[in-house]
């Protein structure tokens, strides 16, 4: 009884951590650092945003799909 309960709360914790991570990645302090990298085209910031975005989506996909896999039999 306690195991699935703990399992569920652990998943919620991971998701919450992911949301916080995404918020931090998308916000100025980090962006300012990236924006100051020297470059001829100024592409770094944009590149960073897309990579961070893809990274977050990848983590979310992994989290959501791996949480579904073990429950498949029950649904």
């Amino acid at each position, binding site marked *: 009884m*306690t195991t699935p*309960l703990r399992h569920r709360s652990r998943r*919620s914790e991971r*998701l919450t951590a*992911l*949301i916080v991570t*995404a*918020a931090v990645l*998308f*916000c*100025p302090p980090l*962006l*300012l650092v990236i*924006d100051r990298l020297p*470059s*001829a*085209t*100024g*592409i770094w*910031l*944009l590149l960073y*945003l*897309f990579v961070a*975005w*893809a990274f*977050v*989506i990848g983590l*979310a*996909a992994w989290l*959501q*799909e791996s*949480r*579904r896999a073990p429950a498949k039999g029950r*649904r």
Partner: protein
Amino acid sequence: MRNDILILAVAFGYLAVLFVVAAWGDRRAETGRSAIGSPTVYALSIAVYCTAWTFYGSVGRASAQGPHFLLIYLGPTLAMLAAPFVIRKMVRIAARQRITSIADFISARYGKSARLGAVVALMALISSTPYIALQLKAITVSHAVLINYPGSADLAVEEAHFWADKSFWVALVLAVFIILFGTRHLDASERHEGMVAAIALESLVKLVAFLAVGIFVVFVMFNGPMDLLGQVADTPDLSRVLGLEQVPGGATGWVGVLILAVLAFLTLPRQFQVLVVENVDETHIDRASWVFPLYLLLINLFVVPIALAGLLLGGDGADPDSFVLTLPLSTGAEALPLLVFIGGLSAATGMMIVETIALSTMVSNQLIMPLLLRFGRLHLSGTGRLAAWLLGIRRVAIVLILLLGYVYHALIGDAYTLVTIGLVSFVGAAQFAPALLIGLYWRGATRAGALWGLVAGFFLWGYTLLLPGFAQSGWIDIALIEQGPWGLGWLNPYALFGLDGWDIYSHGLLWSLLANVGLYVGVSLFTRPTALEQTQAALFTEALHPNLPSASLWQGQTTQGELGGLLRRYLGEAAIRRVFADESDGHAGDDREASHRLITRAEQALAGSLGNASARVLINSVVRGEALDMASILSILDTTSQALEYNRRLEQKSAELERASAALRRANARLRELDRLKDEFIAMVSHELRTPLTSIRAFAEILNDGDAMDADKRRHFLGVIVHESQRLSRLIEEILDLARLESGRLTLNPERLDLALLARRSVDAVAHLHREQGIALTVELDGGPAMVTGDADRLEQVIINLLDNAGKFADGSAPRVLIRLAPHKDRFRLSVEDNGPGISLGERERVFDKFHQLERDGGELGRPRGSGLGLAISRGIIAHLGGRLWANESRQLGGACLTLELPGAADEALPEAPDAH
């Protein structure tokens, strides 16, 4: 190839395809095989978020403000990540309460307030109009660009009277299309599966179209991204385009718009429609929470390359909002611009379809119906005519909403770029966020707080964002923005209270949300919610509570007939059948009292068509003595799920502890009893051992002292000592036997033997003793061999013990003892009787206790006649052999009778068994 006829044909052809898809989706839904029952379709339908604003405007914004455009998509990414928490809760509430729109949702949360619903509907209408205007503008401009290229597009728009204005006709055509499309259902149910299927298709089309342009620009017009970037690096002006300094408002503006995007994604009427109302399965949210952000990432992938390419090639004259079209056109491509146009068209129509359907539902359910009900103007002649009424209202609303959009577009749309209009709408929708989102988690929020917050926030939105728009379009004096109203600088809508240096959206969002949240919380804290508000607040905030009561909130009374009449009047027979499906005879129309469950179902059915507030009014009209069963709901919900869970675990633990301590108590009691028995036993054993020891010692001392004792006396004394020593060792032998018996270590050698033979041998053994004591022994062992399984030595010990006992207790003057062996069923009984005083009923079991000795009147005091262990040992041995030993009254001799019973052995004769001894 680019001519009006072709473009119109393609556009109408595309709309026809959408219509067919929608019809197919509806038919599938009617037959119960939902066409949208997949998380991917759900995610694609959410992508209605990407409107013409995304399709054309992102490039324009990227050209002017660098990475700023991405915020509009990073925000929803954050919101979707949180969807398993937030949207799941809203979906569950909406399904349970049959919510039809965001206005309905907020109204239901605050006690099904009709006023609040009307305010939200009105606000949604006002804040969405610019957004609809934006879509009209996008369609018209893109069409003009397509036709007039390389000429300027603007001329075509501003041409002449409204009947010559294409966007007017676009609005009208779309109105007809949406009426055909979104209000086909006669049951006016809140779900539109066909529409969702069509929207999902539109999302695919716009994605494909945009990716096609992107790939074309990067890989055909340039030689891949490196070539493009190389050329950008050679143009110093462009290298700064992508930096953070391009973002209006800098870091503050960045965070402000990010927050704005998160909130607007959840509160835009069309997003609420597809996210919550049209959700068919809660589990879809999990996958959509990453598929939708992925969609956003893909559709934004080529925005910057297209913007850079447009800036590199397009020169200064072209409008960046049209780069998506003008870049392919500039190369002379024919098919691609048409695909782009279709992509833009699908982005725009998708938004307009969902938005107008959501708005028309709000207008009919939250604005018109409550008014009609209140003033009694709703004359329903036949049965189930409400559906026709509702559809009529909605159709008119759709036309009016689109015309309103057109009017906005015609009057002031040109003053703003696409982006500006969109963001102004966003801030307007974000005003719903406090009432919607905080209300999901804070039970103390009240209707008055929500109302004040919404009105204040909306007012500030109008002042800081909408009004300046009018000023910029020349509608009102531009001095409003430049000097502030009446020259009061601190009231300047773009720098309220002197707060300047911010971008207008963050600025507007800050002031409007500050007022909104402030009043929402402040007023809530100082107002008292009604009973219904409290119930609804509890049902909303605890929506994910596992023990949430599903229905039966009504305590009022009505008859099934009245309830059925109400449903028939408003919803028709089909609805009655659905609502009464679980009742005994499946139809209404008699005087039986309606159950509370039935009333709740009826209210839900009405709410699905009319909205919560109106359904409430209607149900109140037939239910008497309304009183909600508040106490029970609140008591269930007052303890949060966590507390309940802890409680449950605590209960489990304490039950376990109780069980364990009961077991321990039992074990302890047993141990104490054993301890007491042990003490008793030791005391008795010591006593028993002391008696012979005392006499041995006494005689030994006499012998030791008395030197002059004669030989006879000495021999007599020695005889006593020997006798007592024998008794002592016999006693010890018995104690050891008893110890072995009790610890289960007594080893028996069971074998087949003749009990009669054994008894005879035992009789022989005691005969001498009995003769000495003058006991008359009668032996009745004539029944032939009695074959039993037993240990010969031990059995003999038992029989001798019984005979010995009987001799001791036989009558002193004429002692008689009888031993008898008789078969009893498949067993054998050996009884030994005497003619002594017998054993009283109460003593019969106790004689088998250890050291139990019968009081014998007239017996020699101080000289116990036995150890008191014999019978205990005998019973133990017999029990080990599978038999019994008990005492009762002697039938023949009148004294005591001790009987042992042993099961007979199987028939096969083992010759050595009795004769071995």
